[in-house]
């Protein structure tokens, strides 16, 4: 019976992975098909003829590499800023009791209520006054502000899960407050920090609306703006080059996740043992 269960589990896992990966496979397939094949009724994962020209067109058009570089810079810096700001703030929110905490939590929730279309214009005017309207610095600040409430909410949940007794034990052993945080609390928060960083990176990497409105110069365009330019007026879509561009756009996210995945797992295990 156990001999049968094991292959069945692997089969289920393979089916699940295929289900998860199929959209990406289909995207890759579309990125190497010709326009004629994409517009035919035949459905096949493998192309009749490999059409690598889509990648050439994607790379040649609209400065996609430059846009990817811009997106990477904005996503990495805003993610780092979010973590640096949210980590101590979330600790305070999680540990503090009273009206300040209530006000903080309420602010986080309320800030999520406003649709971006309501804040975009005042934001644009503020950034313009500061000379940051058409700059990656301005967009980075906006992304940081935009992601901060959710990151705070997420991290304060992780902080709350760390038993306060651990901190008390550290204090009993003579560790200062900062030492307790550095050597006990923050290491236990590693999985939370990684998860929050992943969220922040992806949110910034994919963000379209703020970038669309705030950035005016083509040399500052981020990847979502450039990819959208493959969708033209009158419903015209350059599907092959768009798919090729999307595949290229997915690579940094995949690399980022791959790098952090091990940390996420090890962090979770570390927390489990110490908790």
């Amino acid at each position, binding site marked *: 019976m156990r001999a049968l269960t094991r292959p069945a589990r692997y089969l289920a896992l393979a089916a699940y992975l295929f289900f998860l990966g199929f959209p990406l496979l289909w995207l890759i397939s579309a990125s190497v098909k010709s326009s004629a094949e994409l517009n035919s009724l035949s459905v096949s994962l493998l192309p009749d003829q490999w059409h690598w020209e889509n990648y050439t067109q994607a790379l040649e058009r609209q400065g996609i590499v430059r846009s990817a570089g811009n997106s990477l810079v904005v996503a990495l810096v805003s993610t780092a800023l979010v973590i640096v700001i949210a980590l101590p703030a979330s600790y305070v929110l999680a540990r503090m009791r009273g009206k300040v905490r209530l006000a903080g939590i309420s602010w986080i929730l309320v800030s999520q209520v406003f649709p971006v279309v309501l804040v975009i214009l005042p934001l644009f*005017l503020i950034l313009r006054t500061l000379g940051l309207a058409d700059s990656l610095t301005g967009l980075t600040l906006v992304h940081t502000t935009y992601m901060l409430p959710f990151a705070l909410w997420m991290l304060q949940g992780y902080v709350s899960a760390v038993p306060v007794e651990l901190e008390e034990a550290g204090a009993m052993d003579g560790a200062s407050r900062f030492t307790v945080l550095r050597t006990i609390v923050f290491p236990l928060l590693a999985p939370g920090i990684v998860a929050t960083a992943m969220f922040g990176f992806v949110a910034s990497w994919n963000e379209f609306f703020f970038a669309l409105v705030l950035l005016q110069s083509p040399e500052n365009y981020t990847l979502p703006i450039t990819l959208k*330019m493959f969708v033209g007026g009158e419903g015209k879509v*350059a599907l092959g080059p768009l798919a090729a561009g999307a595949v290229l756009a997915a690579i940094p996210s995949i690399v980022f996740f791959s790098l952090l995945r091990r940390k996420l797992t090890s962090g979770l295990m570390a927390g489990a043992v110490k908790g």
Partner: protein
Amino acid sequence: MKSPRTLLTACALTTGLLLTACGGGGEGGGSGPVTLTFQSLSDQPAAIEATQKIVDEWNREHPDVRVEIVPAGWDGIYDKLITQFNGGSAPDIVHYEAAGIVPFAKDGYLADLTPYLSEETRADIPEGILDTVTVDGKVIGYPTELQSYMVFANKTMLEDAGVEIPAGPTMTWQQLRDIAKATTGDGRYGLGWGLSSPTAAFLALAPGFGGQYFEGTGDSTSITVGEAETALPELVHAMAYEDESIMPVTLTQSGSKTLAPFYEGQIAMTVQGSYQAANIAQDAPEGLDWIVLPPLAGPEGAAQATSPQTLSVNVDSEHVEESAEFLEFFTSTENLAAINEADALIPPTRSAREALADKLGSQHGWDVILSSGEHLTSAPYLFVDKYAQWKDTVATPAFQRFLGRETDATGLARELQDGWKSIAN
């Protein structure tokens, strides 16, 4: 629930009231060459190249007034423009479409180009097209590119069915219906029409039946949905369910998705935007003998409403006159022919259409497509403030329900009218 566009517009108007006059695009009025920013939405590689070529030529001939292209995408352009106009960072020259720029013109963001439009250009643009860019008697943009709805046909399938292929200046909807019936059979259908978003097509083609839908402007806009307005949806309904000559699945698809069964010979004809001629020429399998049938004509003629792509000038630009001069240059016969050839669209001026017809002849049905340009005209719905909201939240679902046999023509008319009233109020 308010749409994001409505919210943004409301927010923009509120903020606009709080702002003092903001500086426009372009450079200050100091000495030295003037630089005009031209936010271009050209998306096809050939059109991008043609636009660049025109701008390069201008810059070569006008060293004191340089034009700088700022590429942008169609997606989200309304939101971008409204922020740019309110934030005082709009470019000098704005590329968009007639239906889209009307609200900006009404809010005073666009310069009146009437004094700059040369008599020669004015005479070259058919009155109906000029009407699409005229708001309160002022020309607020130069039309640059148009599209019409055309019927693309598999000539072999029509000949095999013994159909006489229409060759006149126009063809009637009844002819289309008869051909579709004659070519239906053996698992094949006479027509495929991608009507997943039917409002644009039904309203654009309504003038041929005498349908207008809207009357008046601003707060006094009213809607009428009578026999003339429902004639086309009813015809499609009859072809789909009485004649069974329309491939049912195509009614739920986009226009471009309907090309696949056309390429496979599963449908004999398909109604598409005229620009699809370029895609069909590129993607159709070898051996597919396809043609473009003459423009469709209803009882009131072959008129189709159109919303041309436009070039307008930011009212806050410090160089309105220079910008208008550039627009005159951009819309010269030669340039319009080049840009429309690159985009596979129809030039708005007669001379550019003739130039393109002379150059391309009957290749890929260009002669027939260009002839449809003469029938393109304005329509009241292009000037209706809340048209976009009505289209998305009322008309499209109502037409879909009608084509899905969930309601009849009376119910459709009621839904369209009641929906408008609730939006207008």
